[in-house]
């Protein structure tokens, strides 16, 4: 009873007016030890912890939360690592309100704020990292079997961590010059600092994982080349990197770019800093099309790069926005404008071809569609114009076509995702496993990680069987 009377502890955050001056300062400051223990003490240690069912990788939530309550923070971190490869990342970016926290007893039965599972997860992981007692997992003796992971996003990182522990000789190939996939080139510093990802990469490297940058599997070398070099199995985690556009008139004008381009310029190439050579357009009025995490990240980046008006244009209503609730909330605090129930239909430009105006159409909401969200319907005759000087299109991504187009025998769905057996993550080519966004389309970090772990367990079984047979 006493426990349930307590209010959820608020995550301390940087002041909105202050934080919009910096691209690289994290908004959430993190709970103090006291705050974490206080929040942990709300958990009821339910006999049937429904929260676990809400977590895609079934973290033992009550166990780690109890450790925090007892002040055993390192044990809490250890518990997280039993199932999650990157708790410091997931604590920050998981859509908790749709997953673990949605299934918490508080949410479900008491209509109260759930235990702040994500914030606590982040606390434990950060505590361990900052304590200097970060445990590097034990690695089994080398078994001499060479395997490769393709791409270096969360799916590959969790895969590599599990396989190196089992004694495999693991190489991760990455097309870009940085390791981390979307964690590095997509999600901005103000939400997920690079140094947090780097610590994890460092640990993987210490455990023996080899990282090869600037290497495109299928181009720099083919799968056959790699097999000749002794690689026996592959985990394809090449992501959903292909940006979608809307194919409306004027979309190729200058000043209209994909969120991937915008975020890559700023996050991967440091374009906002003068001493870096990559350019970025700093708009005064920036419109970002879409309502997902990518849209929120873009619009808040634009604000931080000095936009006077940074606007979300989204064709459904706030309730249907796929972005994390916390991000939408932070965006509102930062003065982002929301034009909901509107959709661009055409762009206009000055005589040099630089966008200066967009035409939007008002939308209404109809019946729910396959995703359960109410379908946007066009309101005829409702068009009006908004002056803009930068437009970022964040309406979704398609699977990266590189590997499917290089490996003709690979079975691919009509959406371009690699088809795998759900239980094993094995593709139509036995030695090729796949996971993360290349299998799911644009999904989440935690699902990608879960796939990586599943693929690791099944690839291990496959390889052990094969070697025994020989």
């Amino acid at each position, binding site marked *: 009873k006493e426990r349930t009377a307590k209010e959820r502890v608020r995550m301390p955050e940087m002041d909105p007016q202050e934080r919009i001056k910096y691209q690289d300062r994290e908004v959430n400051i993190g709970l103090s030890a006291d705050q974490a223990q206080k929040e942990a003490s709300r958990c009821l240690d339910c006999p049937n912890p429904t929260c676990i069912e809400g977590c895609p990788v079934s973290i033992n939530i009550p166990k780690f939360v109890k450790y925090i309550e007892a002040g055993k923070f390192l044990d809490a971190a250890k518990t997280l690592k039993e199932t999650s490869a990157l708790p410091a990342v997931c604590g920050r970016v998981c859509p908790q309100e749709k997953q673990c926290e949605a299934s918490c007893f508080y949410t479900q039965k008491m209509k109260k704020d759930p235990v702040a599972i994500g914030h606590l997860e982040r606390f434990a992981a950060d505590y361990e990292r900052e304590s200097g007692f970060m445990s590097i997992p034990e690695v089994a003796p080398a078994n001499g079997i060479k395997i490769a992971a393709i791409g270096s996003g969360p799916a590959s990182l969790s895969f590599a961590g599990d396989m190196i522990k089992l004694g495999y000789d693991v190489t991760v190939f990455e097309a870009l010059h940085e390791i981390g996939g979307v964690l590095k*080139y997509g999600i901005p510093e103000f939400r997920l600092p690079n140094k947090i990802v780097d610590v994890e990469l460092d640990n993987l490297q210490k455990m023996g994982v080899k990282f090869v940058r600037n*290497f495109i599997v299928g181009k720099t*070398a083919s799968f056959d080349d790699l097999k000749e070099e002794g690689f026996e199995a592959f985990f394809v985690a090449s992501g959903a990197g292909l940006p979608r*556009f809307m194919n409306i008139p004027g979309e190729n004008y200058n000043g209209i770019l994909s969120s*991937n381009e915008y975020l890559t*310029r700023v996050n991967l190439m440091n374009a906002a800093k003068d001493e870096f050579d990559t350019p970025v357009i700093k708009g005064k009025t920036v419109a970002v099309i879409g309502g997902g995490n990518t849209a929120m990240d873009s619009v808040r980046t634009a604000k931080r790069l000095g936009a006077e008006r940074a606007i979300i244009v989204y064709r459904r209503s706030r309730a249907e926005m796929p972005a994390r609730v916390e991000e939408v909330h932070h965006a509102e605090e930062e003065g982002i404008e929301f034009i909901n129930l509107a959709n661009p239909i055409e762009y206009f430009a000055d005589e040099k*071809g630089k966008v200066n105006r967009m035409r939007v159409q008002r939308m209404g909401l109809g019946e729910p569609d396959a995703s359960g969200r109410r379908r946007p319907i066009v309101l005829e005759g409702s068009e009006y114009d908004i002056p803009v000087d930068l437009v970022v299109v964040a309406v979704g991504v398609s699977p990266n*076509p*590189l590997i499917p187009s290089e490996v003709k025998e690979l079975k691919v769905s009509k959406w371009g995702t690699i088809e795998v057996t759900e239980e094993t993550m094995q593709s139509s080519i036995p030695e090729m496993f796949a996971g993360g966004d290349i299998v799911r389309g644009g999904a989440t970090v935690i699902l990608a990680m879960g796939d990586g772990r599943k693929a690791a367990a099944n690839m291990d079984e496959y390889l052990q069987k094969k070697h025994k047979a020989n």
Partner: protein
Amino acid sequence: MNQIVEKVLFSEKVAKFVVDAPRIAKSRKPGHFVILRVDEKGERIPLTIAGADPVKGTIVLVVQKMGVSSAKLFELEVGDYILDLVGPLGKATHIHQAGTVLACGGGVGVAPMLPIVEGFKKAGNRVISIIAARNKDLIILEDEIRKWSDETIVMTDDGSYGTKGLVTAGAEMIIQREKVNECIAIGPAVMMKFTSLLTKKYEIPTQASLNAIMVDGTGMCGACRVSVGGNTYFTCIDGPEFDAHQIDFDELIMRLGGYSNEEKLAYERYV
């Protein structure tokens, strides 16, 4: 990190680099390009692979000084390293037996044209090459082009070398003289536009190799999008070569200027 093993200055603004890149030397084909980043602060820029030696494990890049990134590369000497280099990127040129092939190269575009000319010659075609530039100093790789061409015509805008005039004048002369089955155009966007207009008039199938602005080169950003036949394509993965008669060159030229203010500022900071 890829080491520079040879550097040859063609002129004050154009240099050839031979770079250690064994993997790429082995897997590249004519038409492919790389993306490189000179140093930690550098941007990613695309450059065509102008040749390769799979035995020595080297590739050839020919670069023209334009702004910050090309100037930084230009400063590197033999023994220095390029921080990041990835490739081969793009689709390889469709080299086949066409009959008579007319290859039109403008400025530094002659470098990427060289392996294509060589490829078409080796495939048994009659190859006529036109290499054009503003003046004599900017004519590059003439001997190499001659080696793989049945006939080579040099054109300069100011008449300081070869025939005075634009590449299109040379091309029209050939087309009127003999049957041309296929044309290739590589060079500045304006040059490709007018070459394409010319060959369209004579209904000669033409491939142009586009130099759209790129970031990743893997299909991830869409910076390199071009309109071809009314559809949008990504130059890095769908190209860089497209059916010239279908390309919206005016849009390409417009998009090439998309960052010109920022580029100018960056260059001023650099010098």
